[in-house]
């Protein structure tokens, strides 16, 4: 084609920002046929986007040349491992490390530190205890949709005779997170992506109730007084209440962008929750009246919260340098114990059947136990890099989820650990709850399902 003038420098059009994220995927095989057709149609009339695609073509070639399977290894050549070496090393490093006991340091008076809120160990699963944009909108009552759907359950038998059953969720990528059990055996859970509260009844019926505030980022859920369930909305900065019939009421947290994270019932009727974005503990009555307790400067960001055997609330605290456990009495008296460096990345807290507090050290790769007097014991997990993430108490033992190890673990109060492997495709284990019949329920992020271990 003859050109008499030099071509103009391409400029993006109004639609180009829509297509921009799709262009790099053209060569990956990840676009559906219709998506590809739409993109190619746009490219036909858009020089700017064609130029972008040209840069991705050049990039693809460079990736293969320099990072690909056949790229020359310009450093020393790779010496392959032999099977003999692998089996020899496996024999040498077998055996579980011993547990160790220390004493937690009672928090001394500290100068104020700059607080950098660190997200929880769910980073790999893209679900974090992290403060996101707060959207302050008014909530309201909502009526639940009629009827429900039955879910197709699939079950497998794990070693040791345990059964793992999965209840898939109908909408892809619902991102189930927090989970709790009702007295009648119904399982209630939050759906972060689809912004709903889900209910799975014992007969297998699944109902999903939309949360009035859009994109509220619902996280933790817990049973409250009178059979209602209460949940946190991290982005919306609200606490939600849902009745067994599915009616939702929302209450706005007074402090702006407080990122309410975890919530627990302190009988007879108040619910206590952590404001991880504001370094505060909140208390909400069933009528929705909120009182907030500010933690001292330097205390850190509170994440998981439980009711302790001493009737105070206990919660994990994360500062820029330390992992701690905090305690707040009903009157608002605060104290804290240092567990160790922040690198342990404590996640998940439970009040144990032995009257002690149990927690997961996701990067420390261990389960920790602390008495309310501060005596600490650490139980390392058998396999490295398991990423234990959350823990719950049931039938005299503690159950926890290993997100990277894809296992469900059980630890006795004396520290004996048993683990059950979950198939890789069913992983992304996130929230855990235990039922009266001793079964363990959990949410599975990448499998988009509710799991049950019996």
């Amino acid at each position, binding site marked *: 084609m003859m050109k008499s003038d030099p071509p103009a*420098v391409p400029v993006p059009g109004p639609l180009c920002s829509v297509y921009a994220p799709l262009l*790099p*995927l053209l060569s*990956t095989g990840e676009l559906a046929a219709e998506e590809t057709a739409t993109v190619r149609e746009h490219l036909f009339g858009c020089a700017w986007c064609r130029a972008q695609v040209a840069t991705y073509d050049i990039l693809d070639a460079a990736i293969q040349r320099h990072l690909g399977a056949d790229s020359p290894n310009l450093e020393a050549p790779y010496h392959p491992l032999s099977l003999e070496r692998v089996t020899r090393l496996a024999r040498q490093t077998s055996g579980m490390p011993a547990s160790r006991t220390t004493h937690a340091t009672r928090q001394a008076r500290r100068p104020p530190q700059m607080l950098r809120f660190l997200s929880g160990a769910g980073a*790999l699963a*893209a679900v974090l205890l992290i403060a996101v944009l707060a959207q302050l909108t008014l909530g309201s009552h909502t009526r639940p949709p009629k009827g429900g759907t039955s879910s197709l359950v699939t079950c497998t038998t794990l070693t040791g005779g345990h059964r793992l059953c999965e209840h898939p969720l109908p909408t892809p990528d619902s991102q189930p997170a927090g989970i709790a059990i009702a007295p009648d055996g119904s399982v209630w859970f939050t759906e972060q992506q689809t912004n709903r509260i889900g209910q799975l009844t014992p007969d297998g019926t699944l109902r999903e109730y939309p949360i009035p505030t859009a994109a509220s980022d619902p996280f933790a859920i817990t049973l409250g007084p009178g059979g209602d369930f209460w949940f946190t909305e991290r982005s919306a900065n609200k606490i939600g209440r849902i009745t067994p019939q599915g009616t939702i009421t929302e209450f706005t947290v007074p402090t702006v962008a407080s990122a309410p994270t975890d919530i627990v019932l302190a009988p007879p009727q108040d619910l206590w929750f952590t404001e991880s974005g504001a370094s505060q503990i909140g208390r909400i009555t069933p009528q929705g009246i909120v009182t907030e307790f500010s933690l001292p400067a330097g205390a850190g960001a509170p994440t998981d919260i439980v009711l302790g055997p001493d009737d105070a609330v206990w919660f994990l605290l994360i500062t820029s340098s330390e992992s701690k456990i905090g305690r707040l009495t009903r009157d608002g008296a605060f104290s804290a114990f240092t567990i160790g460096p922040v690198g342990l990345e404590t996640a998940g807290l439970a009040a144990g059947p032995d009257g002690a507090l149990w927690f997961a050290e996701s990067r420390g790769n261990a389960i920790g136990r602390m008495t309310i007097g501060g005596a600490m014991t650490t139980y390392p997990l058998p396999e490295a890099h398991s990423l234990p993430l959350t823990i719950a108490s049931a039938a005299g033992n503690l159950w926890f989820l290993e997100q990277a190890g894809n296992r469900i673990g059980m630890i006795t109060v004396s520290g004996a650990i048993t683990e059950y492997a979950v198939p890789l495709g069913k992983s*992304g284990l996130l929230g855990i709850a235990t039922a009266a019949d001793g079964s363990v329920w959990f949410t599975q992020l990448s499998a988009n399902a509710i799991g049950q271990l019996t």
Partner: protein
Amino acid sequence: MSDTLAPRPVAAATFADYLDRMQLPLFRFVHNLLGEAEQARDLVQEVFVEAWRASQRAAPPFTSADDEAAVRRWIFHAAYHRAISAIRRRRLIAWESLDMLRPPEADRYYAPHPVEDQVAERDLMQSALASLVPSDAACLLLNAVHGFTSAEIAEILATTPAAAKRRLSRAKQRLRNAYFAVQEPAVATAIAAESEERTP
């Protein structure tokens, strides 16, 4: 679902075959993430030792069912999590941010560096890759080099397929931005003209 027979461990010969065929691609993946050969070699060794121990317990996928695709996903998954741990220990930043709410960068006009030789270009690619958040780099490598789909990447990274796809798009955009540099408009024009002639 039938559960009559307990799974048997994978045969040693089959495991040796996996080891032979998978260790070099795994080393490449880890080396590209860590940027350091010795640490990458140690990490690959750890992964296969753990794989062997899993196979001795007949833990899936190391069973006589011989699901090679599942084995491949397993070893990349194990390597990925170890590599991320190693990177975190190396850096003082505790967490990588998800960054999903950051507005997309304005698309600027890019043209390739005029690099004279393979080594300089390779260094440029390595440093561009190193400028990515590790999980983005892993996502890109898993797809572009190792041929995993976003569904498989979701298993390896323990995330959702939709998130993996978004991450892949973002990783390629960012790698492209890091690898290329803004050039004179004349050079940009030349590329546009060339691409216009190529398009049917």
